[in-house]
């Protein structure tokens, strides 16, 4: 079998990830907003006699771009060895895709073009003369619609069999041509990269003379000139290729645009969205949660007797430690995740998130950041680690740091189901329809509190972090696309929900075992756990909580999901004393341990404001490459949480 490699490159939001998924059969989630793929994804697949290694690059408009994620793409195209580049163009806006295509052609002759979003182009009455385009470019052009799965077989066919003998040669202005000829004979694109990217040229070994020539040309040729040169070429190629009927705005777009930009409806609409998504999550996870809980509880005794051949010293930790923690996590976390993630993905695919960023830009700009921070916050609501990685869409280093440091104020999916449980026990106490609305309202308020804190902390940090950076905010607003509902649900569950759940489950079992041991290994008549609890207790009481709660938060560091089951184990000294029976009856365990409404409020506050989980911290370290900021992201929310709890405890 032949082994070949290819990369997928294209503008943001043209469906690269969709094509990548369809070709490789993998399950990377795609969304309807710019900047979804933030690092290279590599997969292998076989077509006919060839084993392809395919790399999905982050979206970029040009190889000259400078943001981190765009650099990943341009570095790959220029530096790596691959047999073929597949350039994905947007059929609804070919003019815009042309520049990148021409830039790639300046580097590589072996290029296949996929004109994606053909279905959408047809709907909008845009007609493209494929044959003419193919003739002018001298490379294969394939019409595709990744969403419908159209044209992908032809794309594969061309990838395997196309020959590249008369690929279009980009003609630059004489000045640029002269420079390229002198500098890098074969690959004009590389020469141009030297010209426009100082960082790139500094890294390279160059002869003294060449560097002098480079500096000379750098003064003469601006980036704008190069862009226009590509633009001229693009216009020449596209002449006669595109035919456009006067476009009518989609009715749907018109309505949403009006609602989202209107001063009376925009913010209520956004609040309603937040509330709605939370309410649906709470309402529909109520019953499955209870059922799962009863089911696992019911299994406990048979399981115990089934394993009764084991010595008690092994069996008890397994069941009362590991199993109980595990089933708490599974029954309380699974239903909300299975509802929240698909709902969120549907909104994302539909294209609502950029509108939120649009509306929130002004308040964020007052804090030294920009509207895109709200996108990273939305991701944080799913998983803070994902939110932190997602900050790569921010255009300046400063804004990126601000969003990383504040992302934890969005309660992730590992935290808000636990919040829902506490809200259900202490504030609402009824599982009816009305109860779910109250719960959702309270949770919305907590999240709004998180948003408020985000603004506040961003504003304050703004004075300390990288003071001299210029703000920049340019946001694409894609038109609304109807998502493939079943496919979206399937992908979001398989890729996101189950992924996060698995992480929690892997942690919960050993954590349960550990607690059990700590609860039962005694030193001078008291368990280690008691020592730890007693040690933390004075401080806990000071902020309206107790030692066990603080210990549970600390133990929950590997995964926030296990905070409450840890707490239950701590209270019941390793699970020996109480059986769980049902979710509602758990409240008694809290009450016996002197919980009041105030304790519950403080618990919720600390859930919102405390250190990020271990995965998120590692991600922060990786993304910022700085211990200082990693530690800061640990200390900052924790301090705020402690101070808030302290104040509340003081007042009441």
């Amino acid at each position, binding site marked *: 079998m032949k082994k070949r490699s290819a990369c997928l490159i294209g503008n943001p939001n043209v469906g690269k990830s969709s094509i990548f998924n369809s070709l490789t059969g993998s399950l990377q989630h795609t969304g309807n907003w710019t900047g979804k793929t933030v690092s290279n994804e590599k997969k292998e697949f076989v077509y006919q006699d060839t084993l392809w290694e395919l790399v999905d690059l982050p979206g970029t408009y040009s190889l000259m771009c400078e943001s981190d994620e765009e650099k990943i793409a341009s570095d790959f195209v220029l530096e790596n060895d691959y047999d073929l580049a597949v350039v994905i163009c947007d059929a609804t806006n070919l003019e815009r895709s042309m520049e990148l295509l021409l830039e790639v052609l300046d580097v590589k002759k072996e290029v296949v073009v996929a004109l994606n979003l053909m279905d959408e182009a047809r709907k909008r009455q845009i007609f493209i003369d494929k044959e003419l385009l193919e003739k002018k470019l001298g490379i294969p052009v394939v019409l595709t619609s990744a969403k419908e799965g159209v044209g992908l077989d032809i794309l594969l066919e061309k990838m395997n069999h196309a020959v590249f003998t008369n690929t279009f040669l980009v003609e630059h202005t004489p000045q640029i041509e002269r420079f390229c000829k002198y500098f890098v004979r074969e690959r004009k694109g590389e020469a141009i990269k030297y010209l426009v990217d100082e960082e790139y040229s500094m890294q390279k070994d160059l002869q003294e003379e060449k560097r002098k020539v480079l500096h000379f040309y750098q003064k003469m040729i601006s980036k704008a000139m190069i862009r226009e040169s590509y633009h001229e070429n693009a216009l020449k190629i596209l002449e006669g290729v595109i035919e456009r009927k006067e476009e009518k705005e989609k009715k749907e777009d018109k309505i949403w645009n009006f609602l989202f930009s209107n001063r009376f409806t925009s913010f209520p609409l956004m609040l309603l969205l937040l509330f709605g998504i939370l309410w649906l999550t709470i309402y529909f996870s109520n019953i499955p949660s209870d059922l799962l809980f009863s089911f696992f509880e019911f299994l406990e005794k048979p399981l115990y007797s089934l394993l009764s051949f084991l010595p008690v010293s092994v069996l008890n930790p397994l069941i009362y430690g590991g199993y109980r923690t595990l089933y708490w996590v599974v029954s309380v976390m699974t239903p909300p995740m299975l509802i929240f993630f698909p709902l969120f993905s549907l909104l994302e695919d539909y294209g609502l998130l950029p509108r939120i960023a649009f*509306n929130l830009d002004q308040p964020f700009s007052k804090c030294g950041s920009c509207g895109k921070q709200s996108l990273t916050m939305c991701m944080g609501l799913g998983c803070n680690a994902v939110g932190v990685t997602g900050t790569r869409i921010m255009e300046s280093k400063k804004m990126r740091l601000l969003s990383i440091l504040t992302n934890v104020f969005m309660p992730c999916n590992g935290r808000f189901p636990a919040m829902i449980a506490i809200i259900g026990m202490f504030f609402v106490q009824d599982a009816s329809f009305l109860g779910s609305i109250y719960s959702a309202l309270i949770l919305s308020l907590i999240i709004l509190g998180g948003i408020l804190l985000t603004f506040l902390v961003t504003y304050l940090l703004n004075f300390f972090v990288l003071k001299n950076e210029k703000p920049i905010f*340019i946001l694409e607003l894609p038109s609304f696309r109807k998502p493939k509902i079943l496919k979206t649900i399937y992908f979001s569950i398989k890729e996101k929900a189950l992924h996060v759940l698995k992480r929690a489950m892997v942690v919960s079992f050993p954590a349960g075992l550990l607690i059990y041991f700590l609860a039962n290994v005694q030193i001078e008549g008291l368990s280690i756990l008691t020592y730890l609890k007693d040690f933390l207790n004075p401080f806990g009481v000071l902020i309206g909580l107790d030692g066990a709660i603080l210990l549970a938060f600390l133990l929950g560091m590997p995964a926030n999901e296990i905070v409450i089951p840890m707490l239950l184990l701590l209270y019941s000294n390793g699970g020996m004393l109480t059986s769980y029976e049902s979710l509602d009856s758990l409240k008694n365990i809290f009450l016996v341990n002197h919980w009041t409404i105030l304790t519950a409020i403080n618990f919720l506050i600390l859930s919102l404001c405390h250190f990020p989980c271990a995965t998120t911290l590692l991600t922060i370290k990786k993304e910022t490459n700085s211990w200082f900021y990693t530690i800061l992201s640990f200390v900052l929310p924790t301090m705020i949480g402690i101070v808030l709890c302290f104040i509340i405890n003081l007042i009441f």
Partner: protein
Amino acid sequence: MKCSELKVGEKGIIQEIFLDEKKQAKLFHLGLIKGEEIVCKFKSPFHSPIAYQIKGCVFAVRACDADRIEVSV
């Protein structure tokens, strides 16, 4: 006149762009090129940012940046 002065629904032709290189590059790729027609689509409740359309592409820029784009009606 300044691009930011276009009313919602109004069209203009881009005459001159006085933005720094980084922003100019970004906007160039969204279609902001001298001579193109630009339409003001909608404004945020705070009046900034503003959404414009050039060819098929809708994007948002802050009002202070739109101030630095000259258009003729």
